[in-house]
């Protein structure tokens, strides 16, 4: 006996309904299909069968309706929780993983290009893992009949309305990242630079003698600068004390640089030799550093004063 389209259709429905009711559903569906085919006596039998089965549609959908099974991965009951949780995880896990990998590879003394590559790749993989596992967990929750006791929404969860602030989170984070980078560069240049001395060892850019006083001071100023950025963000706008503190920190960082360059005790003499600077060029470089430090301080102070003035005009 050859299998008919109806046989195949009924089989397709049966195989995805719970086993306990498979036979019953199959029997009932077959008799209903036969009734419907009989009713189409305007067509010959094969054609009628085709039309009827086409109308019934995808057997998978029908089976899902019989079995009361969702036809979506994550439904409205869980979707928002799923989405919020995933965004929250994605905001810090991949970045943290990338940072750890970056640090570890750097310490293992590989090239920094390798370190960045490894960090990006690890961060990306972490993101893929986060998305995959969160989705799997919620897709399973959608399909099992348990109350996971997830916290519901309350009015307390409402986000803060954006208040008028001059200093956005992006500004603060950018500033902190730059401060961090600067600190890392200050420290790392002592051990790893792009310049090798005569014996092939890396030569520090800044005079290592400065570690006994000036460099720790500069690092301390950077920490103070980071604290200032956080304070600024909490205030949300430029105020008199913040402008004053900004000026002080800016001066405290730039003046030592300028002073050391002025006295030609900033750059490491070994470094100067290794890159082949003569007396005259060294003089230019030192002058350049002094001028650069002064200009940066001026820009920062004027910018802070300007923003404070604008703020006062706006609120007046």
């Amino acid at each position, binding site marked *: 006996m050859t299998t008919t389209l109806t046989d195949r259709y009924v089989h397709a429905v049966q195989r995805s309904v719970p086993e306990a009711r498979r036979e019953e*559903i199959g*029997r*009932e*569906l077959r*008799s*209903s299909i*036969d*009734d*419907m085919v009989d*009713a189409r006596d305007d067509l010959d039998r094969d054609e009628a069968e085709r039309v009827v089965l086409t*109308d*019934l*549609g995808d057997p998978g*959908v*029908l089976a899902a*309706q*019989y079995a*009361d099974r969702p036809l979506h991965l994550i439904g409205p009951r869980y979707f928002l929780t799923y989405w919020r949780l995933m965004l929250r995880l994605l905001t810090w896990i991949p970045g943290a993983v990338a940072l750890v990998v970056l640090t570890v590879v750097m310490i293992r003394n590989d090239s920094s290009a390798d370190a960045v590559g490894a960090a990006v790749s690890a961060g990306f993989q972490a993101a893929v893992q986060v998305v995959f596992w969160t989705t799997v967990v919620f897709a399973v929750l959608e399909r099992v009949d348990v109350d996971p006791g997830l916290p519901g929404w309350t009015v307390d969860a409402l986000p803060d309305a954006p208040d008028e602030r001059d200093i956005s989170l992006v500004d603060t984070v950018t500033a902190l990242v730059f401060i961090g980078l600067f600190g890392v560069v200050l420290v790392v240049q002592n051990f790893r630079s792009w310049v090798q001395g005569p014996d092939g060892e890396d030569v520090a850019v800044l005079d290592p003698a400065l570690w006994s006083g000036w460099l720790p001071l500069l690092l301390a100023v950077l920490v103070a600068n980071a604290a200032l950025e956080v304070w600024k963000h909490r205030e949300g706008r430029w105020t008199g004390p913040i402008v004053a503190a900004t000026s002080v920190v800016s001066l405290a960082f730039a003046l030592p640089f300028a002073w050391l360059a002025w006295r030609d005790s900033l750059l490491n003499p070994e470094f100067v030799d290794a890159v082949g600077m003569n007396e005259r060029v060294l003089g230019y470089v030192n002058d350049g550093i002094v001028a650069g430090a002064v200009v940066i301080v001026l820009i920062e102070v004027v910018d802070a004063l300007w923003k404070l003035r604008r703020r006062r005009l706006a609120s007046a």
Partner: protein
Amino acid sequence: MEADDVVKTHLQELRRGTVVVASLTALREPGHGYALLQTLAGYGFAVDANTLYPLLRRLEDQGLLLSEWNTDESRPRKIYRTSLRGESVLAVLLEDMAAITSSIDRLTQGERS
């Protein structure tokens, strides 16, 4: 064209629950799936077969319909009829439909005055 789709969606939503009411009412007279489909179509309920058959099963699982296999005829058929429990649920549903209709009526009249 787009407006038609909007109307179609709203009509679908409006009618979704009424299929249950119609089925419970029609199956006071015992009948099989396809016969019910025809009866409903005859009274202007355009239900798809692939919606109605799973629905009958669900109503049976909920105890609102009873069923038995009729093997008298050449083709065995599953005959459904409304159970006592189905009757009492139907009464509640009908009452609610009447309440909705009267609410809509009052709302419409309230607008006019």
